[in-house]
């Protein structure tokens, strides 16, 4: 089956049910077993996949529902990173973590997550990982001479995991780097680290950069202009950005710089509980099409849907898909 134009995708996370939130915290407080929590994760992931399929999303994820947050899922799995497991009382908080020596290589366990995802969907399946710069900003470095050196070594270790994912059948991999927006001065080495991370990884690669979604609110404000021209060196197929909340002004940067990668256009605001209409989504896509050709445009939410109630998240995905269909019809797709 040919790929649709304006392919729709989630950015990664899906609505986290209240009961799962409580269970995660109960596990953290030793009131629930790992076995029981894993079973709950499996059930929640299946439901998240089904919601995405019913909404009609082309590229689905496991909703990242197994993750406490975008950092700890990796710091607790990266060999050589020491994590103080007593350092948080709420699952969504970050653990204190530190690296005190050169990182050894080892599995991060993402292949199992991919296999589970592929077992329950025939759609294109995307797996997201947190990028080196964002991880470096959260792990205390007591070994590497510079943040860049730390990031490049993280990339070396994580690159092996990405290659393993591809061998296991991964077709779509996304790197999340929200901390770019908080540390624009570090962007040049951030891009070098991403390139080291994806070196030799044969999958569709997207790089997601937003202004933060911690607790469902932005961590920074500004313009994506800071990304250019450094981001043009990123060896990825798509740059996935948020526009629905911030307005579409920065889409023109894709016209101005004509980057070698496609644009993942954020068309639904993940920080608002108001569900967009398909017409609004379609209008946002049309506005982008005035600057970026359809062949280089994909459609997605601004960021993960983790902080939204399930009915709102599902409604937004439906609106995104329906709005995209309206535009596809206009394009004869």
């Amino acid at each position, binding site marked *: 089956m040919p790929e649709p134009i304006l392919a729709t995708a989630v950015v990664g996370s899906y609505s986290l049910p*209240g009961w799962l939130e409580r269970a995660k915290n109960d596990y953290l407080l030793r009131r629930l077993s790992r076995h029981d929590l894993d079973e709950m994760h499996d059930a929640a992931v299946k439901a998240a996949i089904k919601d995405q399929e019913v909404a009609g999303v082309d590229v689905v994820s496991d909703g990242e529902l197994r993750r406490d947050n975008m950092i700890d899922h990796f710091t607790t799995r990266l060999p050589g990173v020491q994590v103080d497991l007593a350092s948080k009382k709420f699952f969504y908080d*970050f653990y204190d973590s530190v690296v005190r020596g050169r990182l050894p290589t080892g599995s991060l366990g993402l292949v199992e997550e991919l296999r589970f995802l592929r077992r329950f969907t025939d759609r294109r399946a995307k797996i997201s990982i947190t990028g080196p710069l964002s991880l470096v900003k959260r792990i205390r470095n007591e070994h590497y001479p510079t943040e860049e050196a730390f990031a490049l070594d993280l990339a070396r270790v994580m690159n092996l995991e990405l290659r393993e994912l591809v061998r296991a059948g991964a077709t779509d991999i996304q790197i999340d780097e929200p901390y770019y927006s908080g540390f624009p001065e570090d962007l040049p080495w951030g891009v070098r680290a991403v390139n080291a991370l994806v070196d030799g990884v044969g999958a569709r690669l997207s790089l997601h950069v937003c*202004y933060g979604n*911690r607790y469902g*609110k*932005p*961590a*920074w*404000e500004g313009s994506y202009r800071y990304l250019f021209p450094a981001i043009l060196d990123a060896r990825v197929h798509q740059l996935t950005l948020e526009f629905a909340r911030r307005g579409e002004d920065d889409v023109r940067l894709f016209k101005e710089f004509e980057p070698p990668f496609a644009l993942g256009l954020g068309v639904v605001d993940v920080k608002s509980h108001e569900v967009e209409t398909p017409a609004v989504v379609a209008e946002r896509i049309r506005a982008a099409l005035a600057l970026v050709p359809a062949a280089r445009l994909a459609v997605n939410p601004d960021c993960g849907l983790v902080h939204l109630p399930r009915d709102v998240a599902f409604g937004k995905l439906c609106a995104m898909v329906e709005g995209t269909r309206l535009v596809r019809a206009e394009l004869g797709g």
Partner: protein
Amino acid sequence: MILHVNHLGPGGPGAPDWEARAGEVVRTLLELLAGGLVDARVVPGLRVHLDWIQYRANFRDPVTLRRAVDGAGQPLGLAEIAVDLRRADPAGLRAALAEALGGVTADEPAEAAAGPLWLEDWTPIRDGVIWRFNRLFWQRVADWEAVSGRRFEEALPSGRSDANHPGAVADSVAEFWTLLRDLEKKGQLPAEIFALEIGVGSGQRAALWLDRFRALDEERGTSYYPRLRFLLGDYSLPTLDRAMEAVAAHAEVVSVLALDALNPLRTLGFLRYKILHVHLTNVYDNLPHDELVRRDGRLYLVEVRAHLPRDRAAAVAAAAGLAVEALPPALDQLLRGGPEALGDRARAVALWRAAWDALRLEERLVRLDDVAQVPLPPGLDRTHLEDLLAEAPDDVRFHLSRGAAESFIHTVPLLHPRGYLQVQDIFVAGMHEYRQGFRGPGKLDGSVVNWVNGALLRAIGARAGYDVHFAPFRHRPGSRTSILYTTPRD
């Protein structure tokens, strides 16, 4: 019987002999019990609280009986007698305690000619008639002041508002200016600099703040002042008018907005994530709340029933030229339509003031079968409440500061990612502080004042992505005010 001696009252030179008063209460109680006034079977479920209420003017009689009931209103074994040692008249103590003890097992009294004049049926505090009085006060504060002859700030315990303290204002301005400078250094200073004050009072604080900010800006040559958009928000239009006069010298950077402190986001949604500084003084302590009680591991919701003691009701009615029975409908009319709804404005304000002065709240404890039955304020879920209860004393009465929580959760979305909320008020900063007793609520001139559960706001803030901190108000010795401020949670 369990005796709770939480907080007898402040000591120091000239202070009453609290210990002697407490001893007298206990001795009298034991004598009455020994005299067989109460069925011996209820004594094990009886609790006596020796309290000290923060405010001289409050809603409780010096000796108060609180009975516990189940969800259907049927009496349970638990009953509490609370004695406000400061106001309990030694001469009348025996009679008051005897009456309270007699009430432990008495049937619910029918409306009687000699009994209190009820203004409402049992209701959670948040829905009580006192909040209608409170709202009327802020909407018609000028009417009240015209009769009282003093500004509402003069009714505060210290005789003036800590909000207007020049030192506190200077600190606030310096903090804000530093934030702006940091943002500018990083090239992240927005073109328009939004700041918001909710609950503007007389406008004095805003005027002082703006004067200081302009002076500092000129002194440092930073040119922030012309970019400032200072918003004054209040639900009372007369108050906004008065505040606007106070800040007339800054009219070019000030806008006034009619907004509900419970939900600023509703009015200011267009400024979501854009406001760098939000300030409130003495607003949270004036918003509807509930109260929860835990006794023997069970939770109870406090319900109240507003009334006027019969003798006071008779005097109030007579002064207004009304029959006593005509008072409740007249007051309802007043609360709905303001003083003019009763015709003669001056007489209506006099009635309003007299009724407020006489107003009392009877309390009862309604047992909740489960934490799930607690009327949770916005932003707080059951897990958080359980966490709060885990850190609270086993026997505790505490505020469920619903209005403050609602205001908080509907304010923080307005904050710029680097913005902060600053609230000057009276906070109970940790659940353990309730071990010292429950100090409120009180009556100010025409409004309600109550302590705010800071621990609850801390829990709600954490969930919303903010760490909530409390700092003592250091500019006036002995001040009970604290300053809440938020920092973005990492």
